[in-house]
């Protein structure tokens, strides 16, 4: 019984990190209709930026998180300006951005391998120690992870529903042409979305590496899981993505406990196939709205 509670609790921690990552991914898909295959690499870069902040620059470790968020947000802006922006709207842009972002992922991973080497690094943004609660071992770092994820997701929700820019992002995701007719500049929305999404990827990278480690390719598997989560929750649907993140996080923890870690991904893919057969738009997905 204690093992089960412990597992569900680890699933919640994983779910919180996946939620950050998958929301970033679904935001880009929702607004730009671009599947960003560099999301995992951005997550990895975010983890290294936090590591650099403490290990190379020598700033206090807790600054790693905000520094990483801001740096990667700027990187996201640059990716829109230099890579994705020039392709959008041109013939075959869906395929082109798909290829360009996977190319970017390879380039970033090779860059990290070159600069930081293949050795695993420990994330400095971490608090040691734990305590017992109802027979479950709870580490301080896990509490930090859940707090950061909760604050980030609540702020994100606030931003999307309460601010003028947030409204513009949602409008663009729901009906791109009608949004333009409101006077919303699509290029500004896309730029902002790339920045926010990369920032969220950075947060999830720092948090995930704080319970595992940092390595040049460590973003790949979490990105695969994020894709599963996004499809599960209905691509472009933020609320659905949140629920799906926790469902997948807990499923992963349970499968790892009872069947072994190596079955986690196969079971998840099996699950997603079943969901897609019966609910092609995802568990919480809506029918595709008619575009102008």
């Amino acid at each position, binding site marked *: 019984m204690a093992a089960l509670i412990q597992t569900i609790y680890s699933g919640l921690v994983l779910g919180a990190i996946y939620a950050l990552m998958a929301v970033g991914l679904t935001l880009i898909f929702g607004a730009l209709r671009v599947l960003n295959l560099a999301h995992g690499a951005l997550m990895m870069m975010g983890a290294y930026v936090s590591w650099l902040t403490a290990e190379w620059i020598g700033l206090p470790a807790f600054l790693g998180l905000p520094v990483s968020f801001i740096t990667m947000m700027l990187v996201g802006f640059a990716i829109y300006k230099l890579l994705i922006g020039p392709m959008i709207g041109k013939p075959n842009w869906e395929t082109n951005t798909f290829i360009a972002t996977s190319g970017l992922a390879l380039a970033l991973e090779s860059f990290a391998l070159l600069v930081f080497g293949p050795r695993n690094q420990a994330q400095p943004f971490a608090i040691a120690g734990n305590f017992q609660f109802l027979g479950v071992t709870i580490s301080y770092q896990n509490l930090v992870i859940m707090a950061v994820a909760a604050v980030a997701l609540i702020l994100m929700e606030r931003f999307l529903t309460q601010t*003028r820019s947030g*409204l*513009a992002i*949602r*409008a663009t995701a*729901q*009906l791109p*042409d*009608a*949004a*333009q*007719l*409101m*006077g*919303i*500049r699509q290029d500004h929305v896309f730029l902002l979305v790339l920045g926010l999404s990369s920032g969220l990827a950075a947060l999830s990278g720092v948090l995930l590496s704080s319970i595992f480690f940092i390595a040049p390719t460590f973003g790949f598997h979490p990105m695969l899981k994020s894709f599963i989560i996004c499809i599960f929750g209905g691509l472009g649907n933020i609320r659905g993505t949140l629920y799906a993140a926790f469902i997948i996080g807990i499923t992963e923890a349970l499968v790892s406990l009872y069947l072994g870690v190596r079955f986690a991904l196969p079971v998840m893919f099996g699950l997603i196939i079943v969901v897609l057969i019966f609910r092609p738009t995802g568990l919480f997905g*809506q029918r595709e*709205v*008619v575009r*102008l």
Partner: protein
Amino acid sequence: MSEPLLRLENVQSGYDDHLVLQGISFDVPEGSVVSVLGPNGHGKSTLLRTISGLLRLRGGSIRFAGEPIDKWRVDQIVAAGLVHIPQGDLVFPQMTVRENLYLGAYLPKAHVRRDEQLERVYHLFPRLKERSGQLASTLSGGERRMLAIGRGLMSRARLLMLDEPSLGLAPLITEEIYENIRKLKEEGYALLLVEENPERVADTADHIHLIDHGSVVWQGSAKELHANDHILTTYLGV
């Protein structure tokens, strides 16, 4: 005499390598209602999309309030007061009625007078006020149409372009929508009204242009259109 509010000269436009509009010219004077009629698929929506900047002009010129706008971005055209209310129920489905209306006043100039404008729209469409907290996807067809028009009014429009406001609505609802359109005319808005059915615009339009295969084939007043039965039979089959 000063220039009309909107002037189209030999407007050509289309999609990819297919030219839809073959050179369309007409004016919309300040405060008047001009209607564009034509069967489906003959370039009416393409015309509005070109004027509002969603589609690039291939030839000719578009002038609004004395300035050439054909190189402007969509947001600049909206900011100038030329507002396109698109066809169908293009209200943001997963937003409330109020959020939809707020988005109509997205641009800074309209934003400062948002609440004042909101009251005007609620006065014109009391049903929207009752439904203000409801998601747009839960509205009826007629309510959605009202919301789309109200959202257009939230910007500081001088000319409203309406794309088939009666499309798919029951006759009674259509009549209600048209009553509101006539109210807008009385308030001094210039209107460019696209319709398929000439009966709809007969009491409202000052001037009618008939479009067929991307060209204007006839123009005149509603009365003149009725006097020329053969035109209706030839082009619209009514």
